[in-house]
Structure formats: structure tokens, C-alpha cells
């Protein structure tokens, strides 16, 4: 009986740990956006400086290929850095601190239940859902930007070699379709996880109202 309680409490606390991790997604969104924006600024600065250098010195730097290569390196590096930064932040969240308390058995389970701050847990789940959703959108936008740049450069090469011009809007739409197709598993997983967070929120709301309303008579 005590073992069942401990294992159920471990499940309980693991779910709350996961919420804590997801909640950091929202906090990491600022970092993610800043890293991606910084990448854009760096890429544009390099582009502008190379064009200015060509204009003023008259030197031939071969801007289309050089800038294209530069974009190809700067954008993926920025986006990969941003994604890894967010993952690192999520991994740095301290979890499992309750394990030691739970080794006490039933008293440990009681202590953990007594220490739960329900309002903070509920708002944590709401923030986790928002963070999960926004991070998904930010990732899609970043990959869309990356694919668009890659396709713009490719279309430029096609234009030079084959003399076929491709409309920018078509390139943008095509990039979006590619990104959505490649991210479909991630989108599905994200949708499922948001559903699970909703589920957890309802379960915990039920538990909190039942447990608070109940009174153990010794």
C-alpha cells in the first residue's frame, strides 16, 4: 500500500517536473528571439558592408556567391544556436529534488503534498502550454526564414545559369510548405503535448478541490 502511494506520488511529481521544464520554454523565448534577430542583424551587416566595400573600392568581391555562402553559414548557425540554447535551458531545470523526500514512504508523500503550491502549479501549466505553442511557432518561423534564404540563393543561381526567374512570393510559399512538411512530426507532437498539459490541468484541479475539501479525522 505504501509502495503504491510512493509510486503514484513519483508519477505525480514527475509530471510536475515536466511542467517545470516546459515552463522554461516561455522564459527562453526572449533568448531564442534575440539570438535569431542577432543572426539576422549580423547577416545583414555583413551583406551591407560587402556591398559598400564593392561600391567604394571598386573591388570585385563576387557578392552574390560570397553573400550567399555567408548567409548559408550565418543563418543555420544562429538558428541551431538558438534551438540548442533553449534545450540547454530546459535541461538545466532542476528536477527530481523530491526523490529523497519520497524515500520516507507515506510520510514523504504527505510532506510533498503539503508543500505543493496549487496556484503556482496551475499557472505553471498555463505558461507551459503558452511556451510550448510560442516556441513551436518561433521554430517554424526561424526554419521558414532559413529555407527562404536558401531558396532565394538557389533561385538566384538558377536565374544566372538557366535564365529562369522565380517569383519571390512563390519562393516564400514553397519554403513554408517545405518547412511545414518537414516539421509535421514536431507539430503533431507539440499538439499532443499541449493536449496532455490540458489533461493534467483538469486532473490536478479535480485533485486539488477534492483533497482540499476532504478532512482526515484521526
Amino acid at each position, binding site marked *: 500500500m505504501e509502495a503504491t*502511494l510512493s509510486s*503514484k*506520488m513519483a508519477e505525480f511529481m514527475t*509530471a510536475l517536473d515536466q511542467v517545470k521544464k516546459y515552463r522554461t520554454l516561455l522564459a527562453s523565448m526572449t533568448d531564442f528571439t534575440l539570438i535569431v534577430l542577432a543572426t539576422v542583424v549580423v547577416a545583414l551587416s555583413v551583406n551591407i558592408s560587402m556591398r559598400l566595400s564593392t561600391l567604394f573600392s571598386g573591388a570585385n568581391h563576387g557578392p552574390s556567391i560570397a553573400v550567399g555562402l555567408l548567409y548559408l553559414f550565418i543563418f543555420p548557425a544562429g538558428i541551431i544556436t538558438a534551438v540548442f540554447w533553449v534545450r540547454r535551458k530546459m535541461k538545466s531545470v532542476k528536477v527530481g529534488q523530491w526523490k529523497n523526500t519520497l524515500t520516507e514512504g507515506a*510520510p514523504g*508523500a504527505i510532506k510533498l*503534498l503539503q508543500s505543493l503550491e496549487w496556484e503556482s502549479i496551475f499557472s505553471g501549466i498555463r505558461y507551459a502550454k503558452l511556451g510550448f505553442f510560442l516556441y513551436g511557432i518561433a521554430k517554424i518561423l526561424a526554419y521558414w526564414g532559413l529555407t527562404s534564404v536558401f531558396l532565394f540563393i538557389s533561385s538566384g543561381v538558377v536565374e544566372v545559369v538557366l535564365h529562369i526567374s522565380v517569383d519571390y512570393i512563390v519562393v516564400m510559399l514553397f519554403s513554408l510548405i517545405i518547412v511545414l512538411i518537414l516539421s509535421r512530426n514536431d507539430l503533431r507532437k507539440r499538439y499532443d503535448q499541449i493536449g*496532455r498539459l490540458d489533461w493534467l490541468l483538469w486532473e490536478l484541479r479535480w*485533485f486539488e478541490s477534492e483533497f482540499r475539501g476532504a478532512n*482526515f479525522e484521526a
Partner: protein
Amino acid sequence: MNSGEPISKPNLYVLARIIKVLKERRRLNRTTLATSTGLSYDRLVKYLEWMSSKGFVEFDSNGEVLLTKLGTETYDRLVNWILKYVGNVRFPKFSE
């Protein structure tokens, strides 16, 4: 034996700890029990007084503390009571 207000509403965690230690060790003197439960001696004595008034513990001629049948049953009831609530929560499985 002790000072201060008697316990009117005990902390369930402290109560459960005392009972669990007594369940495992059967009989203990107050000092050892205080050490095993991590409570201060005064606080333990207050809890023991409360538990004794409810019939959960009794003291032998040497002053050692023993858990009564009612104490054991109460502990089991407490575990069952929590399990009734926690056990009904269905936790979703999250992926990393």
C-alpha cells in the same frame, strides 16, 4: 515535562513519521524516537501527549513508547485516504 501550548491540530507529516518509526522499531524511548524522527524533544513530547490522548501510543513502565493497534490502523487509514485521492489522478505521459 514540557512547556508551551498543547497540540490542537497535528501536522499529518509529523504524525505519520512518528507512527512509521514506531511501526518499524516497535518500542523506543523518547530521546531515540526524537532522533529517529528528526524532531526536537519538546515537540515530540507534545505530539506523544496528543497521540496518547487519542489512544495511538502508550508508554510502558520504563517510559518507552509503544504503538497501539489503533495507531497502526490510523496510519493505514491515513495512507489509504491519501491513496484514494492520489490514486484517482490519471497522469499523462509526456515525451521529452
